[in-house]
């Protein structure tokens, strides 16, 4: 089955799910109304009779079930979205591979830098928000939560990669994983910036995978970097990560971090606060302190 038809199918399913969500919602609404009315009546009678208690317990149990049903449908929809996104990603990687490996194909048209920057912002904005079940703690690669020590980034994943620039300086760049060699433990990555168009072979410790979920500050604040923490953050409108201090963590799911980049051209050694999305803020291994 082609990716296109599969996506079309998934979209149809999503459409169904959205309709179901609405049904669930109206059902639970009826129930919630009932609960509210019961409470009102109890208030006017000014006593809690066992009848009401039993009634309320029943109503609440139903309401909870309804909410869980609605929630599972919503999760199901989110899964569908994730599935569609992964299909699109697969297709993108396939196209890229085809582009890279076929000799007959013309060289990839280089994007205008402004467009690349918009795409990067777009990808940060559409990074899924992790929604755990009650009591569940955020998984690795959600927000500031690091990957497990044996984690291997998949092909197509975006990473921060420490590369040696032409002038010999080390630099953290935004890159995309091409492959991982398990025997040498080395990654092959592509510079995201098509102008660079360089492929680097780097050891594991030079690669930091980017978060795959946003952490929700309202529910999982522990999965975010805290104020004054040292991080690597993508400098706005570039494809390079620089050391920065967290100025303020995000307050809402769609908010960005505000960070202070280390910058010697400013009197106090730090840039004014700049916004960087969760997607592009990773922990800084403090190997080389200044």
């Amino acid at each position, binding site marked *: 089955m082609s990716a296109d038809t599969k996506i079309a199918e998934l979209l149809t399913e999503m459409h169904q799910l959205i309709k179901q969500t609405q049904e669930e919602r109206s059902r639970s609404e009826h129930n919630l109304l009932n609960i509210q009315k019961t409470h009102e009546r109890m208030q006017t009678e000014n006593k809690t009779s066992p009848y009401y208690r039993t009634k309320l317990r029943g109503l609440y149990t139903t309401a909870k079930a309804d909410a869980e049903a609605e929630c599972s449908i919503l999760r199901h929809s989110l899964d569908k979205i994730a599935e569609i996104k992964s299909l699109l990603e697969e297709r993108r990687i396939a196209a890229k591979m085809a582009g890279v490996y076929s000799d007959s194909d013309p060289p990839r048209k280089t*994007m*205008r830098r*402004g*467009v690349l920057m*918009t795409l990067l912002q777009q990808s940060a904005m559409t990074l899924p928000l992790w929604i755990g079940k009650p009591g569940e703690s955020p998984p690795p690669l959600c927000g500031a939560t690091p990957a497990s020590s044996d984690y291997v980034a998949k092909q197509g994943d975006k990473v921060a990669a420490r590369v040696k620039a032409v002038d010999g300086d080390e630099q953290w760049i935004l890159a995309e994983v091409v492959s991982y060699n398990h025997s040498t433990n080395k990654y092959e990555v592509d510079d995201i910036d098509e102008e660079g168009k360089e492929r680097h072979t780097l050891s594991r410790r030079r690669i930091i995978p980017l978060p795959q979920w946003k952490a929700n500050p309202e529910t999982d604040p522990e999965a975010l970097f805290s104020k004054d923490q040292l991080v690597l953050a993508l400098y*706005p409108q570039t494809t390079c990560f620089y050391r920065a201090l967290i100025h303020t963590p995000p307050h809402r799911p769609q908010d960005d971090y505000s960070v202070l980049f280390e910058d010697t*051209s400013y009197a106090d050694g730090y840039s004014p606060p700049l916004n960087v999305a969760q997607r592009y803020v990773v922990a800084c291994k403090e190997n080389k302190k200044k």
Partner: protein
Amino acid sequence: MSDPAAQALQPRLLQTQPAGSSTAATGSGTGTSDPARPGLSQQQRASQKKAQVRAFPRAKKLEKLGVFSACKASDTCKCNGWKNPNPPSATRMDLQQQAASLSEPCRSCGHALADHVSHLENVSEDEINRLLGMVVDVENLFMSVHKEEDTDTKQVYFYLLCNFCFFLRTSLSWRAPLEGVLNFVQYKFSHLAPKERQTMFELSKMFLLCLNYWKLETPTQYRQRTQKDDGTAYKVDYTRWLCYCHVPQSNDSLPRYETTQVFGRNLLKSIFTVTRRQLLEKFRVEKDKLLPEKRTLILTHFPKFLSMLEEEIYGENSPIWEADFTMPASDGTQLGHQTVISPASVSGSPALSKKSGAGCLKSVSSSLTGEKRKLPEAVTLEDAKRIRVMGDIPMELVNEVMMTITDPAAMLGPETNLLTPNAARDETARLEERRGIIEFHVIGNSLSQKSNKKILMWLVGLQNVFSHQLPRMPKEYITRLVFDPKHKTLALIKDGRVIGGICFRMFPTQGFTEIVFCAVTSNEQVKGYGTHLMNHLKEYHIKHNILYFLTYADEYAIGYFKKQGFSKDIKVPKSRYLGYIKDYEGATLMECELNPRIPYTELSHIIKRQKEIIKKLIERKQSQIRKVYPGLTCFKEGVRQIPVESIPGIREPAGSPAEVKDPDVLYNMLKNLLAQIKTHPDAWPFMEPVKKSEAPDYYEIIRFPIDLKTMTERLKNRYYVTKKLFIADLQRIITNCREYNPPDSEYCKCANTLEKFFYFKLKDGGLIEK
């Protein structure tokens, strides 16, 4: 007839010979001085002689003029010049000779010299000197007649002598066609780099200069050389040349014309081969006398130049000889003589500019968008009334297409920030400005007025952005210029903070603006802000009537400026900016010429829209034309081959009558037609672009001005690749006229007649269906 010289000289000249011989003998040493002073040109000798004569005492001068003045003693005296009763011997120099007294009687009529010069009594010394100059010239001419051996030339001299007065008063008003050689440079070499073009231009000027002082071969020589033609035409040219160019060189009483001003291609045709040979020969012989830098120019480039020029001289269709030849593609680049744009009307007062400057850009852009929204309706109404231009797209169709591309329902999904990879560079910035996310303000410091605090804050912000983004500029220097009241800065404001700007200095008297600093803060780069800033700056300058930007760009900035339409090819003459603009070592001077008719901040958007419309129209046309013809059956019937054109659908894909395929055929047809239209008696209002001085609001009302001169240029530049384009322009002349002028005006009457005329001609020429 107030010219006493003419009165005095006329009768005298009628009996040339005897009087001439006597004056020649008495008055001058010219005739004999030739071998003695070989270094002097005829011209120098003439002026020397004149100076000598002017130094005479008045009595002597009167005597000399008396010789050429008719006797005024009585009405009956027919004597036409005083003759000295004691002719001086030819050996004695006239300087030593005593002047004859006024009472001395004339040898011929017996009246006193005073009677001959009575009309000169109250004449000023200057006038006397002028008359004496003429006398000398006439004497010299007389000598020339005597000495000349070539019969043709002698004849002309004689004729000239006899009709001296006539030539004194005639003036030539011929066109200046030999200047076409300069056109030749534009025509052939405009693609070259300015330096090489300058070289060619110099060569052509040198060639013209040589022609001006070139002695033409006599008609006899011409006849001998060419043999094939009898040289009548050449003889006419030669006579003219003698009378108007050659003789007046040494004879300054006669009006003089440059050969290149009064002769055209025909003369050049006659003389080019021999002149070329002689010129090259002369340069070869004299090559050691040439300046070293001139030597390479002449010896290496000149022969090639002449060969290319020859092609144009003898070629059939060379456009360079037309009097109205212009090269529209390089109108700003006419070498040497550039038009200076009128000084801009910018208020010099920094206080005023600051007050009105801030926020005015905002209003510009908003008024622009406001206009844009209104325009389509207005156009529709107008166009409905107008006669449609042939081959034009029907308005309903255009409207329909416009609907589909602006239809919000046709867009997919909600508005996002997602851009297509081919989105214009300034698309995001434009959208952000429209939504009020970013603002543009022209601000500046003032010394005479207390500055607004917000503006001072912004200036500090600008100083910070510049000094941060341009680390190689000393901060003090940046501060000095940003706060200098003569400099202004276009500031880019986001969230109340400065995130970028262009600092500039206007030089209204010099017709250009210097761009001093240009930067966008690093975390806001590659969003199209730089492009949008520059577009705003362009519109601001168009409003203030300055159409050139100059800047010294460092190596990192060259790329940016190129994208903004700057080039290293500087058209503003150096004298206009030298000493005005700040010069930076190691930086490249770049220039941008503005076109006042382009709305720069909307340009990429407009072009995108136009592309969309055209694409839709093409799609429609294709779906209309997609027509299936039945297969050919003739081959089955035994026909072996048929002409390609006879296959149905090959010839007329776009409807009939068939388009002329051969571009040269079409070109010549249109050229003929245009020539006929231009000579039509009612074509006069449309010959040239309407002058703003005559109709100040014309270009506000008429959006697509066109005229026959512009059409001629377009034709020459091969713009009319289809007859449709040509007919559309013709029709546009008429519709423009009807739009601007009242229907019963003289202009509209002309337009009506002309329209009938050219439609008749179009039908006649088979360009449209009968």
